């Protein structure tokens, strides 16, 4: 696996969070950084979260500072019921542009981009083929804002791939997702006691289970597979068949002509049918999923099994509702768990960058920063303000030396740039200042200096870290 330092955009989307959790399990992954404009919704162990604006304008600094080699973009909004068209456009088009800009450039460290897109790319039209393959383009211009956004975003990705031939670009087009945890317009529709459908139409549907979505993204991170891939479970179901599998009654109450108008009263009742879903309710869509299977990916669920699992969830949901507390992200708690020396961490890892050694390194840096701080102002300070941590346990590996209380300048010089970078976020302004001064005076590694300057500027501006 070539990907070791991974950036996930859209960490707070369902997919971003699930993918980060899956990647945390892999030991060969060194660093996972997630960015989003909202708090993560899943519990993360070592993935780090950085809050950014919806436009992802400052992403380049993060990419450089953490020398990211793989960017997974799971942020695309493909369901217009979840947000306003304007925000969706901002996120899908402007956000994609900025993320691609952060990955490009001659000095970029990014070697792989995985982009999560949607089968809305193909649209739903009368003269569609029964199975879309990846090389087909949609025969008609997009009709809905979301489809337009997706097309624009994919065009930007294609252009990026052309201009950065050394970067491996994988683009995944997912069909409709079902599963117990994910919320889409379709899960809402199928949760209704009676499922409405358009009179005289029985559209084609393919579903992919939420677990398969995460595995597909992980598959792309683990292997270098440039290109476009459709992701959809085996089997094309008819809408009536889906309702049958779910044990729901269906009612052809939407008229075939003027369907959009007839949806207005339904909207009153709380059912929002987004415009891009109307095409699906009329014609549906089939995808050819064989290209992804040819790369060795195996689906754990067919479309039918996905629907059956979802049906089980629908029946179980009223019984178990409210039993499990939703996860709530709190920065202070996360930082404490990750960085505090008081936290007893489980089994000592043997990797050179185990959590234990992270704390050691951190102590080392802090100690040095204090010393440097001593040198610059004439006021001498007898002891570093950091309390002496617990007596050093038997070192698991000899890679890191015993931190002496004395001047650890030599150790600082031994540290790799990325090791320093990974610790900077836990220091505060005076320490950072001191390190910056030292770094400028000595090795002046551009990555370190830039990261330090960025962090300092942000802290001075009072922005939340």
């Amino acid at each position, binding site marked *: 696996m070539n990907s070791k330092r991974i950036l996930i955009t859209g960490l707070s989307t369902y997919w971003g969070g699930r993918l980060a959790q899956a990647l945390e399990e892999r030991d060969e992954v060194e660093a996972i950084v997630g960015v989003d404009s909202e708090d993560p919704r899943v519990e993360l162990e070592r993935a780090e979260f950085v809050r950014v604006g919806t436009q992802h304008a400052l992403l380049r600094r993060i990419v450089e500072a953490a020398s990211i080699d793989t960017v997974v973009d799971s942020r695309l909004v493909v369901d217009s019921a979840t947000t306003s068209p304007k925000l969706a456009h901002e996120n899908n088009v402007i956000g994609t542009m900025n993320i691609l800009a952060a990955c490009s450039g001659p000095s970029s460290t990014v070697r792989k981009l995985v982009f999560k897109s949607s089968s809305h790319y193909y649209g739903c039209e*009368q*003269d*569609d*083929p*029964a*199975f879309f*393959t*990846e*090389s*087909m*383009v949609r025969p*008609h211009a997009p009709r809905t804002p979301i489809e337009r956004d997706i097309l624009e975003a*994919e065009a930007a*990705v*294609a*252009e990026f*791939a*052309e201009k950065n*031939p050394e970067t*491996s*670009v994988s*683009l995944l087009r997912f069909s409709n997702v079902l599963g117990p945890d994910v919320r889409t317009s379709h899960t809402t529709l199928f949760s209704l006691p009676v499922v409405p459908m*358009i*009179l*005289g*139409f*029985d559209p*084609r549907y393919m579903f992919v289970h939420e677990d398969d979505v995460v595995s597909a993204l992980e598959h792309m991170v683990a292997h270098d*597979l*440039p*290109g*476009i891939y459709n992701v959809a479970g*085996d*089997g*094309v*179901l*008819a809408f009536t*068949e889906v309702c049958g599998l779910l044990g729901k009654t269906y009612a052809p109450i939407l008229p*075939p002509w003027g369907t959009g108008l007839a949806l207005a009263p339904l909207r009153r009742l709380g059912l929002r049918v987004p415009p891009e879903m109307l095409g699906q309710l009329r*014609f549906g869509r*089939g995808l*050819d*999923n*064989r*290209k992804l*299977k*040819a790369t060795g990916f195996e689906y754990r669920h*067919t479309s*039918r099994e996905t629907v059956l699992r979802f049906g089980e969830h629908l029946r179980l949901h009223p019984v178990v509702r409210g039993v499990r507390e939703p996860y709530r992200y709190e920065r202070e708690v996360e930082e404490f768990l990750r960085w505090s020396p008081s936290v007893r961490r489980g089994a000592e890892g043997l990797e050179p960058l185990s959590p234990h050694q992270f704390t050691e390194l951190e102590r080392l840096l802090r100690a040095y920063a204090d010393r440097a701080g001593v040198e610059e102002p004439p006021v001498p300070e007898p002891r570093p303000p950091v309390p002496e941590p617990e007596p050093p346990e038997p070192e698991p590996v000899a890679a890191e030396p015993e931190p002496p209380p004395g001047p650890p300048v030599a150790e600082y010089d031994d540290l790799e740039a990325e090791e320093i970078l990974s610790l900077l976020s836990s220091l505060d302004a005076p320490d950072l200042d001191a390190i910056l001064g030292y770094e400028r005076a000595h090795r002046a590694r551009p990555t370190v200096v830039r990261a330090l300057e960025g962090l300092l500027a942000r802290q001075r501006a009072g922005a939340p870290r």
Partner: protein
Amino acid sequence: MANGRTSLRLPEPPSVRLARLALERLPATRDDDLRRLLPGVEPERRLDDWGRSERIEGLMDRTLYEFFYRYWFRCEVEGIENVPASGGALLVSNHSGALPPDAAMIAKALREEHPRPRELNITVEHFFKGFPGFSMLIPKIGCVAAHPANVQRLLHDEEKLVLVFPEGRKGTEKLYRNRYRLRRFGRGGFVEAAMRAGVPVVPVCVVGAEEAMPVFAQMGALQRLTGLLYFPITPTFPHLGPLGMLGYLPAKFKIRFLEPIHFEGDNPHEDKAQVQTWAHEIRARIQDNLYEMVARRRSVWFG
């Protein structure tokens, strides 16, 4: 369909940059791989991936088709052995009758007379997918939209039989006085489809369908009003209402399957001249056989 035409010719793939870039880096996927990776059959399902329902098809087969095939049209079949017993093949037939009975009768003939009864996939206009009611029913009885990608998948990947009417609606909307005179055979897309898939073409001639539902006139204004493909005046339609669509006259049906045509060479479909030559050749063979069959027929009703 938006522009009102259906062609089996695959449009030139536009420059999808990302796909092309990826192709340069990955080893090409072989055809066999894609065939092997077709989704498996789930026996619990009532529909297949094309939306075909064995239940509804079987019901139609036992009632309506059976009645028309055996007692109403009294179908007479020759040359059924020309349809291969395995592998894909493209059946090409003439087309007539306002609501054409020929497709159903050819499918029924294959089930009844062929030593190894095979399912037939009938290509239809995209129009049917967009018209309420038809959209629901048409796939369930084994019809697929005449899209080149659909035909390629059926013929090459799934190795099935596909029936195509190259005349399309030009054949069914033609008036009674033009009977048994073949219209233009599209733009040769069907030959290209068969060549690309590497399957033989079996020409089929149907005599009797023209008289079963003669079209006397076409009402352009009513066609636009109803949104149908065309609005014909037949002996029973429109004055007997929608059921008049099924008001066939009891003409005697004769179905003749001609010798299969195999194409040779590597990628013959890229040679446009050859495609056109074969399209004309196949059209001529069907036309000649039709004239011969009509000439030998003593009575429209008794054959």
